[in-house]
């Protein structure tokens, strides 16, 4: 009797402790991985809408040939900040959000290893993006030198936004690095007893490897922007030929970061669809260990292919060949992955819930992006395709229908676990089909525009490109609007709906489904047993 009472008060005390802080303070001071994960996800969605609004401005200007709506300089600011926000503000934080929510639950840990650091990594992000966006209202305007900030555009010819840009990138970089350290430390030290490395879900593996990539290359980005800063304001000449520097070296250092960065944005996507496809095919993932090795070799290869972005800078033949073959080599482990996903589905009992639809679209459309990548990897043809809309088509297929679609797949898959309710199925299907159709209308014709010679990052174009651009713009507006459906689904799902069971998907595997839905504020305070 007495013990019962004591246990009860203990329990109440715990509850009390959890919800001590309310309102804004709870979110400011929280060290709970689920809270922080949610904040990351919301933040990335807001940034997605901001960056998306800029894309709408770009497509409005490109709706017709000629200059209609905005000045060329503002157009350049739009393309630049759109790119920066989508890469660093939308895709990367969304992945970090998923990592925060899911990794501790998947490895059976009570929280991330460094909860307070986790709070910091999130809360410095809004400052970074405020600084970046502030530059629109100050002096010469926002960065207009492209998300790749090539010197001397960002140094000698800067419109005065370089300092804002550099500080914003520094803060984003610090945030990513802290987030990545947290992920690595959590995975290395917090796994439940019995959870060996080769028993970890592939989702965890891909984030583990991605975090290593981040730790390796974000500091290089920090170094690059620092050199740009001192070149612009403190008279150094890292990239200034007049002072003995070399602008081509900028491209080498930038792409040494830049290419691994694109894999930072796709490896987690591989992890997500490797979770959803087995769940809805009701079969275990085909070739789990080959998936792990493929991920690791992609990560390794990503360090020795950077100059495929620089084929036209006048590299010697040997360099061109080396980077061409290395780049093509990446298609091998990537092919292994696609093969494994297809083999997982082969003869599976497939059902087409929304997460599966997004995953299937991912496999097909990401592969199209991989193929255009292979075309770009061929040095001689890249001389024609470089800096045209073909490149734009390529990286939007891998990033939008690749990374973004995988995030949607993951979001729909785990929404029941997060909110405790099932999402509105019909509405989510609307979201999927509208997105699927519009995204292809938006990006597929860009391949042809590029092959026909339309250059990227230019606010005007020759008359013969007019028809295609009109369709592309219509696709763009439709895609933009379709994303609001997702917002509606999420809000509706948070407010209520059909109660979700602990495991709403009958084929799902993993520890996260052993806890109730919605996942309690604290999970696995006692490590689960793994066999």
């Amino acid at each position, binding site marked *: 009797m007495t013990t019962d009472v004591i246990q009860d008060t203990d329990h109440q005390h715990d509850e009390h402790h959890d919800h001590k802080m309310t309102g804004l303070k709870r979110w400011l001071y929280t060290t709970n991985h689920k809270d922080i994960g949610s904040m990351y996800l919301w933040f990335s969605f807001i940034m997605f809408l901001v960056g998306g609004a800029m894309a709408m401005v770009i497509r409005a200007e490109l709706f017709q040939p000629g200059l209609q709506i905005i000045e060329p300089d503002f157009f350049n600011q739009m393309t630049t900040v759109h790119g920066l926000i989508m890469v660093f503000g939308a895709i990367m934080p969304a992945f970090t959000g998923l990592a925060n929510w899911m990794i501790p639950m998947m490895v059976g840990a009570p929280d991330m290893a460094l909860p307070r650091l986790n709070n910091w990594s999130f809360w410095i992000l809004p400052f970074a993006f405020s600084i970046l966006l502030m530059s629109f209202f100050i002096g010469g305007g926002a960065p207009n030198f492209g998300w790749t900030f090539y010197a001397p555009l960002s140094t000698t010819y800067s419109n005065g936004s370089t300092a804002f840009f550099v500080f914003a990138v520094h803060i984003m970089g610090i945030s990513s690095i802290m987030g990545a350290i947290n992920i*690595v430390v959590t995975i290395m030290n917090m796994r439940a007893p019995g959870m060996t490395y080769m028993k970890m879900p592939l989702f965890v593996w891909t984030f583990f490897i991605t975090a290593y990539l981040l730790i*390796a290359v974000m*500091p290089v980005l920090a*170094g*690059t922007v620092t050199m740009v800063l001192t070149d612009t304001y403190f*008279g150094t000449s890292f990239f200034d030929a007049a002072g*003995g520097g070399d602008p081509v070296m900028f491209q080498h*250092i930038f792409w040494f970061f830049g290419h691994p960065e694109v894999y930072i944005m796709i490896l987690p996507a591989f992890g997500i669809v490797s979770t959803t496809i087995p769940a809805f095919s009701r079969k275990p993932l085909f070739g789990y260990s080959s998936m792990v090795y493929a991920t690791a070799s992609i990560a390794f290869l990503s360090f020795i292919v950077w100059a495929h972005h620089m084929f036209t800078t*006048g590299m010697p033949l040997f360099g061109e060949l080396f980077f061409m073959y290395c780049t093509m080599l990446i298609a091998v482990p990537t092919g292994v992955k696609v093969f494994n996903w297809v083999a997982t589905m082969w003869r599976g009992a497939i059902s087409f819930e929304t997460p599966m639809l997004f995953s299937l679209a991912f496999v097909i459309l990401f592969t199209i992006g991989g193929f255009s990548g292979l075309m770009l990897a061929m040095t001689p043809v890249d001389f024609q395709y470089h800096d045209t809309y073909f490149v734009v088509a390529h990286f939007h297929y891998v990033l939008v229908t690749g990374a973004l679609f995988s995030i949607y797949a993951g979001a729909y898959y785990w929404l029941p676990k997060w909110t405790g309710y099932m999402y509105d199925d019909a509405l989510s299907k609307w979201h999927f089909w509208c997105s699927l159709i519009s995204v292809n209308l938006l990006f597929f014709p860009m391949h042809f525009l590029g092959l026909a010679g339309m250059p990227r990052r230019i606010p005007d174009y020759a008359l013969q490109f007019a028809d295609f651009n009109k369709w592309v713009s219509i696709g763009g507006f439709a895609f933009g609007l379709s994303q609001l459906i997702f917002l509606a689904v999420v809000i509706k799902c948070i407010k209520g709906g059909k109660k979700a069971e602990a495991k709403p998907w009958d084929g799902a595997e993993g520890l996260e489904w052993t806890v109730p839905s919605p996942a309690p504020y604290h999970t696995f305070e006692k490590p689960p047993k793994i066999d």
Partner: protein
Amino acid sequence: MTKTPDQNVQKTVKKLVLVVFAMFGFGFAMVPLYDVFCDITGLNGKTANTAAQVNDKGVDESRIVTVQFISHLSKGIPWQFEPMVREIKVHPGEMKLVKFYAKNESSKDIIGQAVPSVSPGQAALYFQKIECFCFNHQPLKAREDVEMALQFYVDPELPEHISTLTLSYTLYDVTESVES
């Protein structure tokens, strides 16, 4: 003695932070590495910025190489700057003297600096300058003009497949950085 989980966490964090700093340093280390790499291979088309030795490998009369000269003004320097000969044919090993003309067309005194670059980049190592105006700053008073000399030879070991070299000079205004 086994470590507590906290100690393990600290150990991992320390290692990772070390990697972060190392990679930050590596970013900067790429600058000298790149220069060394390019000096050895000549890949970026940069030529040596000190005088070369006089040719002691003889003249290869059996080959003729075309050397072209072009000039660029960087943004904002109010000079006229042009090669006085656009193209000459030389035998590898043969010493040649060409001149460039520069005139300060503004009413200010300006210090210029010409930066050479050879294309194809591979040929940079074989373009030997005995004397070049690009080794030094070139001050010009307002409206002053000058003929500047370049004495060079093409190394006889120039790879067979290269028959044309283009030497490009870009002229920069370095007044501010020289004076400060």
